């Protein structure tokens, strides 16, 4: 029994990177209506940025933040150059998903070519384990959880207290009505790209600190859990994404302890299937499904 309780502790730690990724993904999908399959590759970019900065002597936590900023700028660059071209040509939801898949292939294979597909170790040094009951964790793991929780509190407060945050939520629900209110939705969408890109890079960095390694496909291993958490939490809902991330983190770790450690994705998609059976409208995320215009 203690083993399973320990699994819950590991699950909360694992949920930290899922949570960061899912918050960014749900924000991006909710605001832009672009199902960004390239999100995993961008998380990999964030992971590599964190790794390289750390190797070059930057404090690892500063490296995570700088990596997030770098990923944010790369995300905006991809959105405003590649994606804009196809949006102007009238690409629909599915086509845009395929285009982002193409972007992912270019980014990941580019990274694979540069790194010769090597896996690099991010050394955090030996740490003393803390214990609360049957749950054991290191200081680094505790910081990962604090980062994820802190980012959630900041983001949630931003979305619910500030004028721009409320405009973001309004634009996600109905961009036409938002424009009628005088909200410059193009600027709001730019903010969404930047914020979601930052969260994406942060997720990549945190994930790589958690698992100690990084390679050209690191983001891909986190991507299924991120997408499922974002959709289970109802696309566009940050609070929903966080809750779903916690559930997925814990469930996958408990399942792992039960002896099915290779079935993370199966568990994730199984959970999504069950959630969709209970509420088929989960994928709609506000009025996202009704929107015909993709915004970049």
């Amino acid at each position, binding site marked *: 029994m203690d083993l399973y309780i320990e699994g819950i502790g590991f699950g909360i730690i694992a949920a930290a990177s899922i949570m960061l990724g899912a918050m960014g993904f749900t924000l991006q999908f909710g605001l832009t209506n672009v199902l960004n399959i390239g999100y995993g590759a961008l998380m990999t970019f964030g992971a590599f940025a964190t790794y390289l900065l750390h190797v070059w002597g930057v404090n690892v936590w500063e490296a995570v933040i700088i990596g997030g900023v770098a990923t944010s700028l790369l995300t905006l660059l991809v959105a405003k150059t590649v994606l804009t071209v196809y949006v102007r040509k009238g690409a629909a939801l599915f086509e845009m998903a395929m285009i982002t898949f193409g972007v992912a292939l270019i980014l990941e294979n580019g990274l694979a070519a540069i790194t010769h597909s090597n896996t690099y170790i991010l050394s955090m040094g030996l740490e003393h384990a803390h214990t609360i009951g049957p749950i054991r964790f290191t200081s680094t793991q505790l910081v990962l959880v604090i980062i994820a929780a802190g980012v959630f509190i900041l983001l949630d407060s931003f979305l619910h207290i500030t004028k721009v945050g*409320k405009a973001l939520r309004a634009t996600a629900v109905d961009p036409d009505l938002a*424009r*009628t209110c*005088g909200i410059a939705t193009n600027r709001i969408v730019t903010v969404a790209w930047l914020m979601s890109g930052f969260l994406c890079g942060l997720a990549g960095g945190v994930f790589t600190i958690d698992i100690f390694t990084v390679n050209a496909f690191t983001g891909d291993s986190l991507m299924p859990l991120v997408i499922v958490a974002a959709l289970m939490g109802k696309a566009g809902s940050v609070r929903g994404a966080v809750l779903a991330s916690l559930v997925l983190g814990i469930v996958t770790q408990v399942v792992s302890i039960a002896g099915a450690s290779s079935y993370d994705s199966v568990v994730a998609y199984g959970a999504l299937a069950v959630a969709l059976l209970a509420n088929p409208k989960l994928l709609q995320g*506000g009025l996202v499904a009704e929107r015909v215009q993709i915004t970049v």
Partner: protein
Amino acid sequence: MTTGNSAPADRPTPTLVVEGVSFGYGSLKIVDQASLQVGQGEIVVLIGPNGAGKSTLVKGINGQLPLLEGKLALNGIDLSRTLPQARIRHGVGYVPQLRDVFPTLSVSENLEMGAYILSKTSLKSRTDQVLEVFPVLAAMRHRKAGSLSGGERKMLAIARALMAEPSVLILDEPTSNLAPNIAARVINEVVAGLASTGQAVLMIEQRVEMALAVATWGYVLVQGQVRLAGAASKLRETSDLGSLFFSGGAPVPPAGN
């Protein structure tokens, strides 16, 4: 009463002037050289059969569709090439027929979004002013807009549009999807009450009798063209209004004032 677009001298100085405008989707022209005016304190109703182009016309006035020809001005300022998000700054308030509130935002947040162009300092005073007009909303400030009843939701939509202190308020079928008794309250109390505050209102309405009863002036749009215009009281007496609706746009002889 006129079949053209000229307005008699007894109407107030026009706030909104729409002259020979055409709107459509792509190459398809839906509204063809329509003209109308709305003055301060007037409730002007735009009526016509389904598919006449009423919603297209008001979407065009609100900047959601490109102007193909003609011009439109508000308080003497040409809005023909103004972006939709900028029209509210010039005084255009708009309540769509559907999707008229942000359902996942609270009542307060919806009002705040309506006042997006206002400064933070004027937000509170404006909210208080609007809630004086709609006291029922004051008790629902923290409720999600999506949980409101049809009538409450429409009140919120109108209140949201009023937050920016528009010179003209455009209502696209405010009683759509409402039960008859709620629809009557929206028209007779809410819309009629707006005119008493001096608000200029341009309203599309399918409940013709009800709308003409509170309106000061009316325009009949058929197949994208203004076929008839006149004082609402005169339009109510027009016996062939129904035939005009179903005539497919055949010209109706002038009824005279």
